[in-house]
């Protein structure tokens, strides 16, 4: 069903690519082929199995090429959450002390809380008001016995880019054996990702943020870094993530990575220009709009904007009625909804409704113009 038909005759504008992206046709075809043609079990000794194993190896090589690592360092997972979980649960299980930033994704933040409940000491480092974590502040929290430090690369709600390499170097200077983990889910396909010379030790990625399917992701684990498995089984993925490989998702992730990285330089330039157009148009219509996250330190695809006195959820729905899809958040407790720790951490006032507009490499200038007009109109309507 065209969910738009009910409200508007204009085509939809999807600016919620931070939540998920539409699967690229070529990626969907590859997954389909893996289901209908190469459908064997990669562990089987016969040729159907060999064929499936070949696809998995090919996908692993593609992911490795996209990240700049060797294939053996790539472990396929069910997504970004599981990739983060393997590190938080499998590296830090016996840690004394762990450091995380204050605006990690729940798959890291809540895993750290679970570690704290089991007696691990957890230090949380707040970002600066510009939405960026300072390497000095982060390293200051690290001790000689810190076993794990985790900081996300691109903050998913406000789009700020963390100086992860500087953070990792600062951490290692203080605790050379500390494992540094990076949630790179929002970075791949938008920033230059090359872990070949990275100072950090592991990176989580996800297929569905880069026009691949949900349910597929990967963990890059630097050679020599150790993690214990969370589940046990038939030894797949070198025993770190056993269970029969999800071949269709893996194949799709491999191709999605390749396509995202091939398109990245041009796409990032375009998205950044579009993001600025969008902001300029919104700021022109509503001079008091608040931009969250310092633009100079932001990924090209995310624009987070707050409007004083305008409730976030109704704004989301009003935009939805115009056929424009975004996501919403606020720093305060709106009824039973959870306030955003991220928005709170960077000092967004309680009465400010925040929307996140997130672009993809398929976003067009026409869509940006339409979205800008819709935001201007809906904010005006809800301000009364």
């Amino acid at each position: 069903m065209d969910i738009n038909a009910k409200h508007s005759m204009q085509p939809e504008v999807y600016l919620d690519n931070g939540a998920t992206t539409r699967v690229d046709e070529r990626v969907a075809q590859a997954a389909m082929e893996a289901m209908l043609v190469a459908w064997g079990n990669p562990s089987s000794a016969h040729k159907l199995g060999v064929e499936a194993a070949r696809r998995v190896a090919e996908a692993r090589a593609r992911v490795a090429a996209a990240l700049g690592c060797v294939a053996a360092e790539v472990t396929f997972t069910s997504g970004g959450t599981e990739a983060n979980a393997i590190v938080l649960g499998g590296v830090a299980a016996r840690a004394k002390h762990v450091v995380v930033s204050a605006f990690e994704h729940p798959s890291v933040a809540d895993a750290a809380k679970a570690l704290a409940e089991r007696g691990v000491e957890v230090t949380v480092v707040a970002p600066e008001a510009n939405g960026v974590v300072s390497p000095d502040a982060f390293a200051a929290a690290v001790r000689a016995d810190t076993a794990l430090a985790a900081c996300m690369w691109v903050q998913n709600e406000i789009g700020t880019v963390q100086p992860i390499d500087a953070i990792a170097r600062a951490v290692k200077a203080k605790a050379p054996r500390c494992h540094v983990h990076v949630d790179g889910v929002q970075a791949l396909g938008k920033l230059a990702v090359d872990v070949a010379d990275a100072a950090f030790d592991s990176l989580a990625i996800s297929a569905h943020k880069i026009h691949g399917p949900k349910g597929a992701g990967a963990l890059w684990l630097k050679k020599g870094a150790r993690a214990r498995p969370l589940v046990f089984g038939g030894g797949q993925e070198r025993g770190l993530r056993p269970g029969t490989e999800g071949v269709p998702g893996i194949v799709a992730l491999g191709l999605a990575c390749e396509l995202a990285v091939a398109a990245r330089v041009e796409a990032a330039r375009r998205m950044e220009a579009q993001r600025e157009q969008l902001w300029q148009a919104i700021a022109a219509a509503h001079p008091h709009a608040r931009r969250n996250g310092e633009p100079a330190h932001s990924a090209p695809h995310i624009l987070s904007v707050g409007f004083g006195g305008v409730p976030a959820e109704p704004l989301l729905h009003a935009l939805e009625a115009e056929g424009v899809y975004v996501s919403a958040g606020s720093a305060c407790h709106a009824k039973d909804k959870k306030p955003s720790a991220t928005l709170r951490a960077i000092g967004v006032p309680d009465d400010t409704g925040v929307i996140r507009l997130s672009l993809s490499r398929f976003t067009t200038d026409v869509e940006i113009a339409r979205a800008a007009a819709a935001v201007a109109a809906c904010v005006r309507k809800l301000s009364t």
Partner: protein
Amino acid sequence: VSAGDEVILVRWGEIFLKGDNRSFFERALVERATRAVSRSPGARTDTKVVKTHGRLVVWPGEGGTRRAVRALERVFGVSSVSPARVVARDLDAICAVAVELARVEAPKHARPTFKVESRRSDKRFTPGSMEISRIVGAAVVGALALPVDVHAPAFTIGVEIGFEHAFVFAEVVPGPGGLPVGVTGRVELLLSGGIDSPVAGWLCMKRGCALGATYFHSFPYTGEKTEDKVARLGAQLAAWQLEPLRLAVVPFTDAQKQLRDAAGNGRLAVVLYRRAMLRVAERIAARSGAKALATGEALAQVASQTLENLGVIGAATTMPILRPCLGHDKLDTVAIAQRIGTYETSIEPYDDCCSLFVPDHPETRAKLATVEALESRLDLAAMTTDLAARAVERICAP
């Protein structure tokens, strides 16, 4: 039907007492029970329901007993059910099955004491009920050496003598009680996404009401997720009434803004909203033949639910308003919501009404004259007609 069959005995309570209406209620119960066991999801087609003297006997089909018991637990009018074995009307045969059931039942209890309870529908059968219990009990003691405890047994073996067969069972599962849905008429429920209104609807159904529901949607202040949540609550209620529930979704935003403005954004806004909702629900009720409205209101649970306010709100309609949660503490309502399965849905965090439109300190002692004076600035008849006409009907299937 023959000896050895597994059946389910269904008992009913209150409807037995309804004098001349008894056969009407019993026919309704048979219809509801048949619907429950034969049409619930995954139901078998080889089920059968027969009314015998004072009991329904349900043949669930081979291997279908547990599923049928679960279905019958949701039939209003049912006081309890027992999976039972059909036995010839012969004491030796009855004793043999009783021993077999006791042998299965005893290991489930730390101290496996038991007693036997007998009931004869066919009073011509001899010996009498007391004597049957004594003989069957003695057989179980003789075979398994289990101690008898007539006051607080760990389990009870039941024996019922029908006109053609006897029935032996060891388990009594309570039903919801009440009356079969439909026997008392139709009610229009004002359904929000909260905890109270689904419970109010359930309590009406328990007293034999068939339900329709009206939901007021304030897009964009409430989103599609809220409407979807309400529709899922409707589906959960439909599962109890054993037929689809018609949900009228009323687009309320513009009217709500007019009412808010008429109330001068003041303390009476909520009273004006509630009165408008009742007027619209009354129209929708009339269209579907409902004779009353039902709400989840409880006395003094929130500031707007004072006696004064309920009076002024209720004055907006001439239809009776059922408020079955009226005497509940919140915890009472929550307990029912948990039992009937609506609680988990109700607490999902999607707003049912925007806090923007609700004054910080609502009026607790509304006066009808003041409210009517505020309303006189609006064309209420047109508003009501317009809202009722624009209501979109959805069918919530169980």
